């Protein structure tokens, strides 16, 4: 019984914290707009086959009798040179953008955070030196260029683009968590845990990590936007998703060839990228204000 009530109260406390956080977050109209964007985009991406006006236009589809139509009621964003409905392709494009962000972050955050925790906790030892100098090497070149270089030796595909970006992205989390962990390790609660003989894993993951979560979370929501941007850049040069995949970057690159006259082919996918990135950025800023962070 006592156990149950203790956990119950812990849950209630958490719920209360969450409710307060949500209240503060939702008071900021800008963050709510971001949330609405991200929810709408996720909805459209998940249910693309059902909500897209012409779901069969997502892949290999040709209908030259309707090629290069300007925006109209029938095709809200017009059609491309193969007669495919651009709005439908954008909905499917959201899938690839979101997948890019989610997969890259899922691959990058755990190792990045663990390395940062370890290097920060053992600050000043050889572990710190080795880990942080390796991150320095990865951070010595703009991430887009290293990702391009990796993609260039692989066969271009959505999967390989994700791998390439992931390979370049973990050091940012290592650096962020290293900074936090190396100052947290001197806090009294960490010393107290050390004194009572808590295990290293307990100290790293139960004492230090929970205090880094808000920063990691904020960085992740901002990074969703950046990763999507880099992914679209890779597809744009042809080193990421390949046609006929309905990837937003690929669509902009294809449309750019027909630019002055058939502007809608490139412009609507470009706007779709911007709205996606904006949504995640607004949420990230909301988190930053909520947690009063400066270093992210």
């Amino acid at each position: 019984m006592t156990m149950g009530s203790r956990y119950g109260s812990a849950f209630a406390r958490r719920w209360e914290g969450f409710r307060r956080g949500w209240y503060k977050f939702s008071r900021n109209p800008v963050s709510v707009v971001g949330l609405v964007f991200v929810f709408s985009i996720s909805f459209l991406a998940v249910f693309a086959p059902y909500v897209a006006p012409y779901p069969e236009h997502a892949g290999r589809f040709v209908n030259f009798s309707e090629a290069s139509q300007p925006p109209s009621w029938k095709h809200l964003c017009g059609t491309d040179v193969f007669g495919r409905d651009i709005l439908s392709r954008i909905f499917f494009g959201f899938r690839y953008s979101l997948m890019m962000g989610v997969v890259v972050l899922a691959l990058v955050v755990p190792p990045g955070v663990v390395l940062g925790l370890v290097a920060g906790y053992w600050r000043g030892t050889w572990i710190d030196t080795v880990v942080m100098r390796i991150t320095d090497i990865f951070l010595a070149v703009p991430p887009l260029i290293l990702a391009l270089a990796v993609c260039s030796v692989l066969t271009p595909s959505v999967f390989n683009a994700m791998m390439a970006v992931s390979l370049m992205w973990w050091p940012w989390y290592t650096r962020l968590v290293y900074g936090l962990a190396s100052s947290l390790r001197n806090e009294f609660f960490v010393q107290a845990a050390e004194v009572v003989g808590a295990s290293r894993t307990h100290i790293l993951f139960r004492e230090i990590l929970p205090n880094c979560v808000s920063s990691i979370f904020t960085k992740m929501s901002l990074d969703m936007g950046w990763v999507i941007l880099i992914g679209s850049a890779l597809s744009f040069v042809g080193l990421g998703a390949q046609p006929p995949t309905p990837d937003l970057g690929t669509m902009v690159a294809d449309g750019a060839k027909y630019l002055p006259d058939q502007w809608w082919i490139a412009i609507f996918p470009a706007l779709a990228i911007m709205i996606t990135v904006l949504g995640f950025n607004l949420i990230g800023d909301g988190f930053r204000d909520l947690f009063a962070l400066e270093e992210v």
Partner: protein
Amino acid sequence: MGILKFIAKRLLLSVFVLFGLSILIFLISRVLPGDPVRMALGPRAPEWAVQNLREQMHLDEPLYAQYYYWLSGALHGDLGQSLFTRRAVVDDIKEFLPATMELALFAGLIMAVFGILLGAVAGRYSNTWIDNSVRIFSYVGVVTPSFVFAILFLLLFGYVLGWFPTAGRLSPGITRPPVLTGMVTVDALLSGNFAALGDALWHMVLPAVSLALGGMAQEARITRSTISDNLRKDYIAAAKGFGVPERLVTLKYLLKPSLIPTVSILGLDFASLLGNAFLVELIFNWPGFSRYGINAMLRKDLNAVSAVVMVLGVVFVIVNILVDLVVAGLDPRIRLGAERGK
């Protein structure tokens, strides 16, 4: 003395980082699948020719030996031969790098000057319509990929309005000034050819602005928030209370310390600018290093790709040292800390 020690330490670290980067890029270019020799010679080349080139490039030897050949060559200024232009990669770099540096420096200048200016004005007049417009601009700038800016500007100002040229570095009618630095604007200035100078600047406006906007938005955002925070600090009120002139308060006591976070991220912004140059040069057909790099990547030209990444690593390291020095100059805590030998 302190500042020299600071520089020496940074240089030592940079050498280490570049050494590590060379291993990284070497591994990327050699370990991952794909036969570059076959790609360079084409599927119908005879086996002996493939074998010859493979031996010439030491591709048949173990990795550490390959790395040794590559590194010792690189240290002697020999980065190997491009598999496609069939020239020494170093010559290619010498030809193409100045065009990119010219563009990147011009874009970097636009980014820093306008970013700080916009941010400072917005922070000084925070929560007015000026501030709100700058904030909206920052959001648009941050979330728009530079290749989208490039395409939009090309379309609007290049084709529709016809205000700016759409490709290249100089108009056909203009004689190219003698090559001294390789940067057309500098060469034109040195040889007193002002027609070429104007024309070259004219060609640079669209690509440079497309490159600059993202970083500019970032800089404006950070400058704005530091300025509006510092504006509320007691020492500003104290300075005003002493009767220090408004302009002096703004420039010396408010702006100077507020620039520290902005300048600290200038290096990062310049890095992403160099990355984005890969796409923007492609769009504006700018005959630069990044266009060379992206073509090398699309053709799996190993030597050229490794060289491009290494050169950008060197550029980035130099930029970061400069940024650190400027920050040390702005921030007495760092400067004096270094002098105390901390």
